[in-house]
Structure formats: structure tokens, C-alpha cells
């Protein structure tokens, strides 16, 4: 009990965490309820006059083609959170699977998995994606999540492996073995709960990383073809001359949002680290 209230105490005092999660929460609410404030679909040609600066009708203006930027922005936010959640989630899951197995088993299993992790780590993801893009005419958001999740796990696996390695030599793991507990149950009930804070951090970093990777992929034209995202907005904006024509309302919001979300996630990461790790607490 005492320990829990201590964590709560430091949580409420930690500005980095509070600010970070506040920003994420605002964007999340915007992504969830934003689309119901606009009658335009993100890809519909809403304004016949082409590019328009922000007005009462189009809160964030329109694109070169007369599409509603606000609608694109809030729907793009949704896509961004989906990528973060699914892509980052998948990366965390694969990382946990490989990290726990390698760390707990050790020996030859560890060596094989370690080699595999290193191989995936050095594969040039961009090159692979170019090849995949060349074969697929239509790319969906889910495809992108899958791809990000399946390439981003190696460092998570490494980190989890190292933690598991140090935990499995603790006496309570030996004691669990003496109680006849099966390996899977030992990992789930004895080891993983001890790394919970660590796993949360891994997920947050994977979440932010996935968003950033997705934005990069979208921006260089390797993103999904049948939907809108913040990265795609920026790609279109640059492609259709938003910069030279000074259509700031087209590219500033997505760029700012991506920077803010990723920045907020990293700030949360640092804040959580301080809470979980007493040595970093600022008293």
C-alpha cells in the first residue's frame, strides 16, 4: 500500500509526465470526437475554389484541391494513433516474446534468438519497403502497422532479454521452480510483473517510434494509398507546392502534431522513468 501511494505521489508531482500525458490526451480527444465536427470527408473536394486559408466554414482552410484540412487533420490523427497502438503494440509483443524466451531459456536458444535479432536489426528497412511497395498497388494502413511492428521489435527484445536475464537468477524464480511452476507461468507471474514499469516504457517508446516511422514512410510516398494520415498530408502539401505558395495551414498542423505527439511521448517516458527509478527522482 505504502509503495503504491508513493508512486502516486511522485506521479502527481512529475511535470514531465503530466505535461506529456496532457498533450497526448488532448490529441486523442481531438482524434476521437474531431471527425463529428465536420461534415466533409477528408478526401472529398469540399471547396470549389481550391486552396483557401482558415475561415469560419473551413476551420483550418482547404488544400490545393479544396479538401477540408480540419477533416484531414483529425482523421489523420486517428490514423496516427492507430499506427502507434497497433504498430507499436505489435513491436512490443514480438519483442516480449523473443526477449522473454531468450532471457529465460538462455544457452543455445538465447544464442539463436540473439543472432536472429541482430539480423533483423541490420536489415535496411527502407530498401525492403521499396521492394514491397513496388509489388503492391494498394497499401492499407494495417499493412503499414504490420510492417512497422515486424521491423521495430529488435531493440525491445534486447532490452527485455537483458532484464529477464538478471531477474531469472533471483532466488524467487528458483523458489517458483521448486514449487513446480511451469516456465510460462514463471515468466507471466513472477518475472513480467517485476518488469511492468519497464514494459510500459518499452511500449511508449515503440508507440512513438511507430508514429515517427509511419510519418517518414508516408512522407516519402511509401505510406497507405487508400486513406489519410498526418504524414500523407505533409507529403501532398509538399508535392503540390504548399511551401512556395505559402499555404502554411496545409503543412503546419500535421507537422506540429507529429512533433508534439512524439515529443510528448518521450517526455512521458522520461517522467515515468523518474517515477519508477527512485535514483532519478528529483527531491
Amino acid at each position, binding site marked *: 500500500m505504502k509503495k503504491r501511494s508513493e508512486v502516486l505521489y511522485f506521479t502527481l508531482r512529475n511535470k514531465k509526465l503530466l505535461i506529456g500525458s496532457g498533450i497526448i490526451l488532448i490529441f486523442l480527444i481531438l482524434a476521437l470526437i474531431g471527425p463529428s465536427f465536420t461534415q466533409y470527408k477528408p478526401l472529398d473536394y469540399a471547396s470549389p475554389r481550391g486552396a483557401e486559408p482558415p475561415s469560419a466554414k473551413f476551420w483550418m482552410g482547404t488544400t490545393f484541391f479544396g479538401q477540408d484540412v480540419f477533416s484531414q487533420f483529425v482523421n489523420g490523427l486517428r490514423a496516427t494513433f492507430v499506427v502507434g497502438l497497433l504498430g507499436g503494440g505489435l513491436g512490443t509483443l514480438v519483442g516480449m516474446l523473443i526477449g522473454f524466451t531468450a532471457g529465460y531459456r538462455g544457452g543455445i536458444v538465447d544464442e539463436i534468438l540473439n543472432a536472429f535479432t541482430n539480423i533483423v536489426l541490420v536489415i535496411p528497412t527502407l530498401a525492403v519497403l521499396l521492394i514491397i511497395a513496388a509489388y503492391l498497388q494498394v497499401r492499407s494502413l494495417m499493412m503499414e502497422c504490420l510492417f512497422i511492428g515486424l521491423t521495430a521489435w529488435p531493440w525491445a527484445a534486447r532490452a527485455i532479454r537483458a532484464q529477464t536475464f538478471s531477474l531469472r537468477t533471483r532466488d*524467487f524464480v*528458483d*523458489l*517458483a521452480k*521448486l514449487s*513446480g511452476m511451469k516456465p510460462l507461468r514463471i515468466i507471466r507471474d513472477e518475472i513480467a510483473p517485476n518488469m511492468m514499469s519497464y514494459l510500459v516504457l518499452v511500449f511508449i517508446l515503440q508507440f512513438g517510434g511507430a508514429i515517427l516511422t509511419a510519418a517518414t514512410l508516408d512522407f516519402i510516398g511509401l505510406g497507405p494509398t487508400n486513406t489519410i494520415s498526418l504524414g500523407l498530408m505533409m507529403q501532398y502539401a509538399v508535392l503540390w507546392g504548399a511551401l512556395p505558395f505559402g499555404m502554411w495551414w496545409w503543412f503546419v498542423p500535421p507537422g506540429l502534431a507529429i512533433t508534439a505527439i512524439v515529443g510528448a511521448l518521450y517526455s512521458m517516458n522520461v517522467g515515468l522513468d523518474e517515477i519508477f527509478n527512485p535514483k532519478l527522482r528529483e527531491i
Partner: protein
Amino acid sequence: MLRLDKVSKIYRVGAFGGKALLAVNKVSFEVHKGQVVSLIGESGSGKSTIGKMILRLLKPSEGKITYNGEDIGGFEGEALKNYYRQVQGVFQDPFSSYNPIFKADRIFRVVHEEFFPQVSAAEWGERVEKALSSVGLNPAHVLNKYPHQLSGGQLQRFLIARALLLNISFLVADEIISMLDASTRIDVLNLLADLKAYGLSILFITHDLSLAYYISEQAVILYKGNVAEQGAVEKIFNNPLHPYTRMLMESVPRLDRKWEKGVRLVDRDVENLRTGCPYYQRCPVAEPRCALSQPPLVEVEQDHWVACVHYESGADVLKPPALAG
């Protein structure tokens, strides 16, 4: 009851496991019912490795461990679980033995779930309280608490109570009191001695000679994984023969005797010594032949074995070579 037969543990270390590290070398001894055997050695002696092999947490590289005549290496599934019903361990660090994020009494629940699922919760609760009382704890004071809210002594008793719930007949006690405070360690030690009176066999792993002498009948002195001396505790303590045992008896700080001055510390350059006596490097009375072959364990008198060239004939028992000077 429990018997080690030339048990060795070799670790592969270095790149590609190219180097072999001999942690335990052909150790044999037997623990009878209701007997306490002390395994005495300093860090790196392999004493904890032996305990872990008995508990099946490590596999012996060579040799065999048998429990009531059965090779424990063959136990799998139900058979292994059945083995753990009878053989349990308590480790050195009471705080590391508990998962810090759960309440300490969770260890009893795990035993309930894994070994006695048919016992009702109410009856199990009674059994836990009984076990706690028998290790001298007041259930009302210690249940429902986190490990950090309990003292080291209480936590070690918890672990002993856990073993009692299983109705064990053999306990591996690995340095279980070395991290406890002086005023409570003797109580835990006495508890072990009382359990022994009820027929429990104990392997008492320690670096402390006085504790071993206090509680056990038999002792095995280990140096770098090798048995230096073994046999009846009185014989070893009243007449230590191996130079290593004598150095231990000499250097251990005691309250009844001051250190002798002028005992030489020897440190021979023995890089890559593969053959020879394991104690050759530090032995003050080593001879050239000690570097050539490892002396066998010889019974120099009844129930007193020594592995040292000076006693190979068994004749010099009454006159060990002088260490000082």
C-alpha cells in the same frame, strides 16, 4: 537417503565455451535420515552449486545424485513434483527469495495451488497458521504483509514454514542465516536443529565453521570444488588435518582465541596448473610432488577423510606439518 556419487559441474566459459571451469569436482557424500551435514567453503568453493544440483536447479555434468536410491536426474513432470514434495531449499538472501511486488504469504498460496489443489481454502489457511506457529511466528503479525515490512529472520522462517507445509524430509539450507542479525540468527539455527529432531535431514551450506560445529554431525570441507576433508564434525574440528582446513580454523576470527601471529600467506605462481593439488597455490607445506597429481581422498581414521599427500599413508595423523615459521 540422499547420496552424491562423484558429482561434477563444469561450466563452459569464454568465447564459444572454449574454456572449462570446474566448479565442482567429483564430490561424493551421503546424508542419512535425521542427519545434518554441513558443506563448508568460501565463495567459489562450489558449495552453492552442489545445493542447486540437489534441488535440480542445475544439472550435474558428471556423476549421479540419488534420492532413496533413485537417480534424481530422471525425474520429470509428476515425478519431479513428487521430488519437490520431499526436497526443498531455503536460500541465503531472504529478500531476494520473495517477489518484491507481492505479499510475502503468496509463497504459501503457490504451494497450495501447485501441490494441494484438492485442499479447501479454509483448511489450507489452518495449515498455514499451524506451520507458522511451529516456526515461532504469530500468524496475525506476519500474514498479509509485503516482504519489506517483515524482518530478514521472519522471512527466513516463512520459507522454512513453506517447506514444512510440504511435509518435506530433506532441506537444503544455503547460507540461510548469514544475512540475519546476530540476535536472530541463533533462533533460526535452533529451529533447524529442532526440525532435525523430528527426522528432517538437512544439508547445511555455510562458510562459518562455528555454525557448522554447532548444528551438524558430518562436515564436508570444500576448496575450489574439491573435497579437502570430510567426515565426523568432531574429528575434523578437533583434529583438522588438511592445510586448508587448518588455515580456516586459524584465520576465522573467534571470541575465545586471538589470531596467531606470523602465519605465512603463500601465493605460488601456478598459471595453467591443470594437474596437481587444488590447494597447491596457497599451501604453506606443499612439496614439488603436490604440483604433479591431485591427492586422493583417503580415510586416515574412522570417518575422517583427507585429500593431502601428507596423509596418504594415514600414518601422520598425530603429527601434522607445522604451518607457521
